[in-house]
């Protein structure tokens, strides 16, 4: 009798996981319906607004505003400022032709990093793309001028340095029938 009792108490029972499984079977379809398998972000931007009394050059003397013209075969970067002369501004300017049918984003970023070191308060860039520029390429250029990667911090998160995070889109006004015909040099001067 003693032996029989001892055998009974040492018997191992399996945990009944069926109710937990039922719960999971309800939760999983519910969560699947609402799950997001992609992450959406945004690029904040603006268009140039016309104010006859406003100047397109920054009011503070220590800043420059950048103009980026995206041509079919090159990108041309120029700057405007109230305090710098023509010579200083043209020294900062650069035109980067396409490399292997791709815009030279790295070259652009290198030049912007240099300008940002000289005038750290500068934040605004006006972008003037050509009409046929695909949206994806435009976004890649905007990504290139907004910030530059600086590797990773101690926690493993990516670090970035801001370059020109405020982007304004603009467009060249097509010349009217009475206007003089523009050549490539004039292309840089006429904007909406």
């Amino acid at each position, binding site marked *: 009798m003693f032996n029989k009792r001892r055998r009974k108490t040492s018997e191992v029972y399996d945990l009944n996981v069926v109710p937990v*499984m039922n719960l*999971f079977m309800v939760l999983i379809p519910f969560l699947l319906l*609402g799950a997001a398998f992609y992450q*959406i972000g945004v690029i*904040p931007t603006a*268009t140039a607004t016309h104010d006859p009394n406003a100047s397109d050059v920054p009011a503070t003397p220590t800043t420059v505003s950048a103009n980026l013209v995206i041509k079919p075969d090159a990108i041309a970067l120029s700057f405007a400022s109230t305090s710098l002369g023509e010579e200083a501004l043209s020294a900062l300017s650069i035109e980067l032709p396409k490399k292997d049918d791709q815009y030279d984003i790295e070259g652009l970023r290198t030049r912007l990093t240099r300008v940002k070191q000289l005038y750290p308060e500068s934040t605004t860039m006006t972008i003037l*793309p050509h009409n*046929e520029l695909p*949206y994806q390429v*435009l976004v890649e250029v905007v990504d290139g001028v907004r910030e530059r990667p600086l590797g990773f911090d101690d926690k493993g998160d990516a670090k970035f340095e801001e370059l020109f995070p405020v982007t304004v889109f603009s467009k060249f006004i097509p010349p009217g029938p009475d206007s003089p015909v523009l050549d490539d040099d004039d292309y840089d001067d006429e904007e909406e």
Partner: protein
Amino acid sequence: MSRFMKRSKPKGLMLTSLLDMFTIILIFLIVSFEAEDQAFKLDPDLRLPESSARSVFKPSVNVVINPQALIVEQKVLMRLEDGKFPADFYTAGEIPELVEALKVYAEQMDFTVDEEEQTVVTIQADKDLDYQTLYLVMRSSSMAGFARYRLAIMKK
């Protein structure tokens, strides 16, 4: 004989590994559920461009330009031919239908709350769309009082 019978007794189904798998799936789905943007409805007819932008999505008036149509707040405003508007819109520099539609939204807004936050348009456009068309939409929005934009992108 009795020993043999004991051995051949069927065992219960082993659910432990299945339970482990379900637990992992459940955790993954709960994390995804938290990251979901409830106010955003991605248009199925377009592919957003990929970007490294880290700005978070905030709800605002939603304008979609896909190759077939121009859509404002899920209402088709006009049909497009291969993602292009009629040529006279490009010449005029505006889309009258879009200006009118957005003016209606602008009138409904309570500008005493936060004017800057309200006069923003979220633009969803296909990654192959040309700049001319994108700018035309932005310019028309600007004419209706929405001069700031959030370009929707797919995070890399």
